[in-house]
């Protein structure tokens, strides 16, 4: 089984910020096959389209999802109560392929931070995590990252917490010591990181998002421009070819 649509019981729910929720959903079968950087596609009662949410972590038979309320669908999801079930198609997409013998810098921006947790955890204690947030009120998962034993650097755009500035500043200082960069966050941030990685000749993988329908690769809705070998641009799909792409392949 590569993936399946199954009911998952919500066993724990916390609110991390006024708009960000932390769900732990129980499903041993799906948890076992879920890898870092993949995503789950959540059925929203009353909505035609599911909502793709990246995997934050897997803890035994528990799949952890940390998501932001952005519109009607995620608002309905946030209203799910402990004990209720959510139907999820999981695990979907191609995640981060994390080698254990390389020095990896994980970079998360805003709601792109959660998928870095399972990814950094898989990489072991030598990994470095740089997480950036808008301001202090948006900071999430600090203790969780500390627990996995990685080196954690946090930034805020306005300096209200951690380093004042963007994630690219500490990354620039550390990039020469790394073998590989894995990033998830807003497109401008990913684009800058991709350019920096190219300049320093480092392998770089980015996790992208796009408006999505089927989630499995059938409808071809969630297109992302990628460069072909001959320099021309074609489309691949976030749900099946991604969400993780080699940064140099993306037609920014």
């Amino acid at each position, binding site marked *: 089984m590569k993936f399946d649509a199954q009911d998952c019981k919500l066993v724990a729910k916390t609110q991390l910020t006024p708009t960000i929720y932390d769900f732990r959903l129980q499903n041993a079968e799906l948890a076992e096959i879920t890898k870092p950087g993949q995503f789950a596609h959540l059925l929203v009662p009353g909505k*035609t389209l599911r909502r793709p949410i990246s995997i934050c972590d897997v803890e035994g038979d528990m799949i952890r999802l940390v998501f932001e309320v952005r519109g009607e669908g995620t608002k309905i999801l946030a209203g799910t109560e402990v004990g209720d079930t959510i139907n999820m198609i999981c695990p979907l997409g191609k995640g981060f392929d994390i080698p254990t013998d390389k020095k990896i810098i994980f970079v998360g921006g805003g709601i792109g931070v959660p998928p870095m947790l399972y990814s950094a955890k898989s990489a072991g204690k030598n990994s470095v995590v740089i997480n950036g947030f808008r301001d202090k009120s948006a900071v999430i998962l600090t203790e969780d990252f500390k627990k996995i034993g990685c080196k954690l650097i946090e930034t805020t755009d306005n300096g209200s917490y951690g380093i004042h500035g963007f994630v690219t500043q500490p990354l620039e200082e550390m990039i020469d010591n790394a073998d590989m960069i894995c990033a998830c966050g807003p497109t401008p941030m990913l684009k800058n990181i991709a350019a920096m990685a190219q300049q320093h000749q480092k392998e770089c993988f980015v996790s992208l998002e796009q408006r999505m*329908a089927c989630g499995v690769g059938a*409808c*071809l*809705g969630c*297109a992302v421009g990628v460069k072909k070998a001959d320099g021309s641009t074609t489309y691949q799909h976030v749900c099946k070819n991604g969400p993780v792409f080699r940064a140099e392949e993306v037609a920014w």
Partner: protein
Amino acid sequence: MADLSVNIAGVHFDNPIIAASGTIGFGHEYGELYPLSVFGGISCKGTTLKERPGNPPPRIAETPMGMLNAVGLQNPGVEHFINVELPWLKQQNTVVIANAAGSTEEDYCKITEILSDTDVDMIELNISCPNVKEGGAQFGTSPESVEKITKAVRKHCTKPLIIKLSPNVADIAAVAKAAESAGADAVSLINTLTGMRIDINTRKPIIKNVTGGMSGPAVFPVAVRMVYQVKKAVKIPVIGLGGISTWQDAVEMIMAGADAIQIGTVLFTDPYAPIKISEGLHGYLDSHDIASVTELTATVKV
């Protein structure tokens, strides 16, 4: 148990549930979840003579009880379909319907001729894709143009020919009649309704293509009405689609006049929908002592 099998233009389907073109690709993805034989047939992704990259993103927007899409006929081209997809599809114990698209009459004739020389069971002519400037929609907008393209293609098509109709017309019955008189073996309807959504913060259309095709439960009543009108107007089989999400919707569409149905957008909401619809159809027919699903077609009492 009741008999769910149907015969459309001489082709036997084990059940009347067909996957709608553009929602299932060439079957591989949903084939991870169940055997594709849960579908009576599969209408494959719209295929053109040459590979098409499709439209720039975003291609998708949600709507109340539905969605818009403007994928733009992204497909690997007919040669790839025949050499790579078709041999696998033919082993899946389901009827394989090729969905042929193009931008000129010549394209349609040529692709139909190529597909006629393969193992596909049927050809569905996509003259109603609303998302490509030259996606054939202009052939599907009037009875005259539908008659002309159908007549031209018919000469090159040795497979049972389904004409897929656009709902973006004034008189759907007249369009269906035109297809029938020009030699269509069946009609399928409805393709998507052209729609649009705007992001009120950026004042930009959500879909890069500006407009997209609307599908999902919201279009279901429109589809039921059009299938009802078309069934009264033609003698050839009618394949009903548009927003079918439950077995009750399937029963309703069949009562309106459908000899078979297609499901599409519901797969995105619930990938297991074909199995649930099939079970529900069995339950309904058995509880009403109806031996065959064919006895239900066009039985609406008006």
